[in-house]
């Protein structure tokens, strides 16, 4: 039955993606472009060469982390919309370690930088979580506002106290060499952070799907009355989920610093947390789904740039396609019942027809 449900969901997800790609094709046609060339360029751009594949996976790294972060928070019924802010603080924390303890070897330095980002992101999420469970202050509003605070705060820090001496670019100094995660494929920003992310994904999967903590988080999110009645410490689980969520976002920021830019930049994230949220919504907070959908989003992003450069079809089209997928998924249950009743009707009509014959 569960499998049946999953299959049903997968089918509707697949149909949603297909339908949005078709709509995308029509938008291309309406603009006088050939959708076939467009999509071929898209696929080529995402997977056409070793470099392209590497770039796709490089784009996947932050999305997996922010997607998992959203999953755990949404599962527990507390909505962390503050991923972007946690990411910025985490990134800054990692950069700060990287420019301060310059003599540490990587084996000590990298875990230290990650710990700093984890703590920064986690603490930044802890604050709204406590407001929520103690005083019932809406966490959505608080976390949204904290995003702005974090972005502006880090922007100040890197322009004044921690501004880089050269480059006039609104960033910290380059982190010490020991902290720089090595690149894996020539020209691509893909780096060893992907291995860390693989491990983190497995841990998160295990946590959410195989442990009593994950079970409690899920129950709390589904019915907090039931959970409390059943002896689960609802507040503690909500806080835990929120802090883990913030920590994951912080780590996502750290990897942007340690693996991609090698320094903190004031606009370091193009909205990774928001993309992660979309991903988690699409896959209904399933950790495996998050990983796969992140790869899909990463491929779309990488491919869309190549598509734009090769065919002139604006890469914004991909955002449109992504939005349409969300719309379809949001309307999924509605579609499902409609399709079911359609099928049921057809069967009924068929039967009636047989009777008449």
């Amino acid at each position, binding site marked *: *039955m*569960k*499998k*049946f449900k999953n299959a049903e969901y997968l089918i509707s997800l697949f149909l949603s993606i297909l339908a949005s790609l078709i709509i995308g094709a029509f938008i291309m046609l309406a603009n006088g472009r050939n959708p076939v060339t467009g999509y071929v360029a898209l696929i080529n751009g995402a997977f056409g060469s070793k470099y392209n594949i590497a770039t796709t996976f490089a784009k996947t790294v932050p999305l997996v982390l922010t997607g998992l972060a959203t999953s755990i928070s949404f599962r527990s019924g507390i909505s962390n919309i503050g991923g972007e802010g946690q990411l910025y603080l985490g990134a800054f924390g990692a950069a700060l370690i990287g420019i301060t303890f310059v003599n540490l070897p990587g084996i000590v330095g990298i875990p230290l930088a990650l710990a700093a980002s984890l703590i920064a992101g986690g603490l930044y999420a802890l604050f709204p979580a406590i407001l929520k469970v103690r005083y019932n202050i809406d966490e959505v509003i608080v976390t949204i506002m904290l995003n702005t605070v974090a972005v502006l705060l880090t922007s100040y820090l890197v322009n004044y106290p921690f501004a880089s001496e050269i480059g006039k670019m609104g960033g910290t100094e380059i982190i010490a060499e020991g902290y720089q995660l090595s690149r894996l494929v020539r020209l691509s920003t893909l780096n060893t952070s992907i291995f860390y992310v693989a491990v983190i994904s497995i841990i998160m999967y295990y946590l959410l799907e*195989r*442990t*009593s*903590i994950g*079970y*409690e988080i*899920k*129950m709390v999110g*589904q*019915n907090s*009355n*039931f*959970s*409390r*009645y*059943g*002896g*689960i*410490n609802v507040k503690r689980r909500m806080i835990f989920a929120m802090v883990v969520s913030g920590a994951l976002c912080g780590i996502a920021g750290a990897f942007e610093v340690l693996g991609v830019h090698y320094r903190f930049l004031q606009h370091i994230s193009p909205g990774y947390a928001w993309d992660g949220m979309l991903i988690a919504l699409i896959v209904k907070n399933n950790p495996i789904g998050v990983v796969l959908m992140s790869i899909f989003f990463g491929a779309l992003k990488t491919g869309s740039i190549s598509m734009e450069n090769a065919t002139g079809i604006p890469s914004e089209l991909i955002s449109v396609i992504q939005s349409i997928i969300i719309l379809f998924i949001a309307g999924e249950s509605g579609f499902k019942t409609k399709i*079911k*009743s359609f099928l*049921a*009707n057809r*069967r*009924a009509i068929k*039967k009636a027809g047989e009777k008449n014959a």
Partner: protein
Amino acid sequence: MAEKLIELKEITKQFPGVLANDRVSLDIEKGEIHAIIGENGAGKSTLMKILYGLYQPTSGEIYFKGKPVSIKTPLDAIKLGIGMVHQHFMLVPSFTVAENIVLGVEPRKNRFMMDYRKAVSITEELSKTYGLKVDPNAKVESLSVGIQQRIEILKVLNKGADIIILDEPTAVLTPQETEELFKVIRKLVEELGKTVIIITHKLQEVLALSDRVSVMRQGRLVGTLKTKDATEQILAEMMVGREVLFEELNRIEVPREEVLTVKGIKARDNRGLMALKGVSFSLYSGEILGIAGVEGNGQSELVEVLTGLRQAEEGSVMIKGVEATNKEPMEIRNLGVSHIPEDRLATGLSKKATITENMILGYHNREPYATKGIHMNKKPIRERVSRLIKEFDVRTPSQDVTADKLSGGNMQKMVIAREFSFDSSILIVAQPTRGVDIGAIEFIHKEIIKKRNEGAAILLVSADLDEIFRLSDRIITIYEGEITGEFKRREISKKEIGLYMTGKRKGMRQGGVQDEEI
């Protein structure tokens, strides 16, 4: 013969894994009270939901006044004059009574603004016409279930329904409220020419109220007969397919020991009003203490205080000598307290979770189900759940379906299976058989007695006096947050206890305390 208003022909409804209706043919005559009875999961609700357009039949046809109709949505049903009052109410808690009644057919001042005054006058008008008293300006969330049901009925009438389907209407009502409801139903049919279909499993009600009765079992229609030809025995046999005897339950004497002491508890309800005004009693091992009272007199709040779900303002709760006032539910559970909550949907289970997930709660972090309290082991969990499903006869296609796919009785059996499987020395049981069929009631009652005979202390809260009388060793009555009487088993009659439940009499029978007549 009266006019056939609705004919259901060969209705079949297939859910994944469950055949809910199997070629059911049934007709409803104009101006009759037609009862549909059957155990939980027999397919009564499904059949009515098909008639109301909530489900589409897998096959089969519906005729209305002799013509085939297709009812795709409740809107279609309403157009035909069919209205339904659901077992689980569909009201907006934060709206007022008047707002709920006019919901969907709001009187408007202009395009955007609702005419609230008009809504109130509509409500008052309806209330007068049908003799269902309600306060149009009260918020629904602050009202008792009985009143909420009235609102549901008024809502349906306001939409102009001629055929009213009532799904388990008496499950949540006190005897007095039930009597009220029956008067209303008779008035609707006899004076206003409406047709009523009532789903129930209480045999006395069927016999007292209906003109005809259809019996369903396991998705099939067993038969339809005139009520005057039916007896309780006949119907019960048709329902369960075997003879049912409400036999005397077997009690054995077990040593009594005080395990729960409640002293001077005061607590407020959700509206902030004093719901408990100093309640004191003791509960002993090996006994069932029944709390009798009209719903809304503090029973729910009492249970919540005892289980840690509500804060007491004054007083103390001692569990086996341990101070347990205002402790978290988890701490109280750890002291050996299990709880069957009165509202299984809101508190007793998670509808979106699978049966396995629902039934493992409380064991999910214990060995061997979770190694070191963390790593959950699928195999022992599944084995435990499937054992409990079998033991407690939870009817489900698999343990992986979500709980909302179960019928009310099976949901309740699932909750009871979980709670009774803990080795708790104290069981707090609220409305254990509300909305549950006869077969399941018998089963649940036997389980409760079994626990008692094993030495558990059981606090039973029920709106069903029969249940209280059948199970309890001791009964206390509660009225407006105060205990009005305490009686030993067989010391008092149902009629007499009603006086205590309604506050007309106060005082302890025990220990020679004089009754005081008020």
